[in-house]
């Protein structure tokens, strides 16, 4: 019995506590990201944004959540019910489990995986299944077109994202996310690898199907793409998953390029603030850029999107990998050399 407690029960409870400590703030920030987006967009377009429910509209996310929960879930007659219901769960689940390896502070990580970057990359590349399954199972032309666009788009941008990650890994010499952050103690990678940081962020926009690459759900031509047939909480899960993915991609950019939990300068007033706060602030800044881009740019045409991915980002990032490797070897800066 004693072995049961020390071997299984206590570690189990401890892991569940850690997961809850990460998940609850994450879900709250997902809820408030919708509020933030509406407020920021409103300010950029000289509107008020949500301002009725609670002070400054602060209860709006909860009002929306209650609305989503109490509405009826409609499954179209010709839909494939199993896959139709699985798709939103998959989208949301994947957006959440990726956080298992995200180091929010020094040592504050649920699973300090040796191949953390690959895990994140693998999970984010699975996100396409939610969309494709939704599009196919809905048995609707708009949804199917959206799914096809999404599949092609996400596969294309993953390639250049992979090369960007490789150029960061070359500078670190480890696939562990905490090691990647620690390698940036002298200088954040955004400075030596600025072009790659930009490529990564734009690819992140495409991976999350955000404006200006939101062709899979282009409301003016495809109504809402793969979301057409979804209602109530099935739609809600897609929505939550999409916003959680935005936060995840911002977190990935922060870890890879903006020094994770590290303060900008390691001197008195800055290093008093704990790491997780810095991490959250950096993510918030990137999320602001996500919203800013949405309010600024018109949607890309599909051929332009593909051209950008395959003919601009892919050669550029490939060249940069060669360049980084060359510089590291030439100056003897390669880690572990």
């Amino acid at each position: 019995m004693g072995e049961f407690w020390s071997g299984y029960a206590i570690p189990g409870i401890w892991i569940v506590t850690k997961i809850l400590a990460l998940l609850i703030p994450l879900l709250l920030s997902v809820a408030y990201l919708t509020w933030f987006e509406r407020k920021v967009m409103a300010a950029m377009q000289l509107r008020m944004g949500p301002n009725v429910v609670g002070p400054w509209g602060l209860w709006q996310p909860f009002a929306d959540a209650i609305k989503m929960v109490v509405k009826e879930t409609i499954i179209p007659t010709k839909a494939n019910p199993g896959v139709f219901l699985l798709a939103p769960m998959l989208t949301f689940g994947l957006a959440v489990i990726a956080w298992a390896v995200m180091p929010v502070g020094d040592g504050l990580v649920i699973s300090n995986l040796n191949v953390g970057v690959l895990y994140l990359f693998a999970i984010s590349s699975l996100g396409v299944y939610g969309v494709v399954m939704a599009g196919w199972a809905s048995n609707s032309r708009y949804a199917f077109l959206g799914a096809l666009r999404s599949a092609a788009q996400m596969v294309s941008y993953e390639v250049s994202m992979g090369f960007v990650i490789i150029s960061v890994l070359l500078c670190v010499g480890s696939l562990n996310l905490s090691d990647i952050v620690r390698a940036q103690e002298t200088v954040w990678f955004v400075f030596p690898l600025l072009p790659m940081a930009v490529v990564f962020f734009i690819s992140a926009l495409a991976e999350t199907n955000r404006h200006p690459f939101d062709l899979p759900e282009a409301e003016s031509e495809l109504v809402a793409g793969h979301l057409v047939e979804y209602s109530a909480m099935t739609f809600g899960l897609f929505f939550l998953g999409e916003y959680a993915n935005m936060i995840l991609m911002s977190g990935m950019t922060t870890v890879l390029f903006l020094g994770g939990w590290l303060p900008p300068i390691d001197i008195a007033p800055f290093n008093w603030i704990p790491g997780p706060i810095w991490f959250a602030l950096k993510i918030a800044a990137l999320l602001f850029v996500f919203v800013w881009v949405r309010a600024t740019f018109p949607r890309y045409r599909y051929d332009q999107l593909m051209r950008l991915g395959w003919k601009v980002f892919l050669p550029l990032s490939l060249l940069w990998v060669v360049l980084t490797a060359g510089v590291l070897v030439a100056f003897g800066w390669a880690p572990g050399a």
Partner: protein
Amino acid sequence: MLIQFIAFYVFAAVCVGSALMVIAARNPVHSVLFLILTFFNAAGIFVLAGAEFLAMTLVIVYVGAVAVLFLFVVMMLDINFVRLRQGFMQYLPIGATVGALLLVELLLVIGIVVDSPDAGGLGGAPMPPVERQSNTHALGALLYTRYMYLFQAAGMVLLVAMIGAIVLTYRVRTGVRKQSIAAQVGRHRADAVEMKKVATGTGVTL
């Protein structure tokens, strides 16, 4: 240890079960989805065996890219389910032969491992213990030194395959008005806009 034990049997059972469903499912899209589940559980077994790098690569390459294209193609096919079942008896002999051969070969492999457990490592380089070197490092050190030429040869084969696929599907289309981004961005006001002063009642020729 108990958790690993349970996890292994869950992964293995789901893996075999979903592999069975790949060939048993009536709907080809369901088959592909079960195939993805199989890949995923195989990755889980890799993780349990301590091969984290292989597990992640399996998910990234097979699940994240290959299976997406599979799904893409299968979803686009206009499949008549009744017709699909018709040739079943006709293909049974070939399928059964291939299956039986595979089974015999697998049994041989398992037999060798059971007979002399060290046989697998005889031809290869010994893998350093996981505590001392992560398996990403170990794989890289081996691939880029000892097996460099084979690795390069594999790359060449893939390159040839890619060129072959492009050559086979490429067709020259005439009359395509492709957008030239450079030309479009490089335009000046002087090239596009002309100011004309038009006297009243005379009109203008452009």
